[in-house]
């Protein structure tokens, strides 16, 4: 039997919700019996994407961030979306160490972290429309039986 599950979370783009978002995705992923390292990878990747939506997408104006997640067998898909200002030059944005906000002491490592800690990363962005980050991770463990 296929192990399947789905959830969607929307929340206000407040920096207090970065920790909340991590807890939610980690709790959802926990049904896959992940290792501590796998959970840490997912929490870090989610934290990067959610932080980006809050500080780059909405630039601290309040908007809504959406996280959608699907589990199929031992694979988790996580989509993090905002309707913020979007990314002008996506290729440059994806480069390690590039940041448009050095004054906020951003390291420019966000996308690199997501890419390294997850198995797959896709970014779609449109100026003035928003940004959508899609990540996939395959877990080593066998899924829990229902």
């Amino acid at each position, binding site marked *: 039997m296929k192990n399947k599950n789905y959830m969607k979370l929307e929340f206000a783009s407040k920096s207090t919700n970065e920790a909340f978002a991590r807890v939610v995705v980690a709790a959802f992923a926990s049904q896959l019996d992940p290792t501590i*390292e796998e959970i840490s990878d997912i929490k*870090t990747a989610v934290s990067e994407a959610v*932080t980006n939506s809050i*500080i780059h997408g909405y630039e601290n104006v309040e908007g809504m961030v959406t996280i959608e997640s699907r589990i199929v067998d031992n694979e988790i898909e996580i989509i993090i979306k905002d309707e913020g200002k979007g990314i002008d030059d996506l290729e440059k944005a994806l480069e390690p160490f590039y940041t448009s906000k050095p004054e906020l002491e951003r*390291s420019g490592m966000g996308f690199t972290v997501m890419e390294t800690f997850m198995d797959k990363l896709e970014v779609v962005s449109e100026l003035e429309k928003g940004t959508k980050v899609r990540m996939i991770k395959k877990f080593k463990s066998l899924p829990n039986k229902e």
Partner: protein
Amino acid sequence: MRLILDTIDENLIVKFKGELDHHTTEEARNKIDMWYFEKRKKNIIFDLRELNFMDSSGIGLIMGRYKTCKENGGEVFIVSSSSNIERILRMSGIYKIISVYPTVDSILENSLEG
């Protein structure tokens, strides 16, 4: 996140407990800089052993303090032992410019000798 600040000689020791992300770095940054300048310290030692989460905001915070210290003729040291924190530190290339130690004492001994 809990931030514990302490000084030994010309070192400011910054100990984090809990989770260091964008939200909590914002809280920590001002306090660290205030102590650094008010107490006229030269070096900063980041003790990350009791941190159970850090994302790239933490890298940004450490790199920012690295610049401040360099401008003031000082250095930055990292104390770390958790493998999850190690992974993001290594990935960020921060170890090319900042040295990591297993304990605070091993740094203090080293700088006394040096």
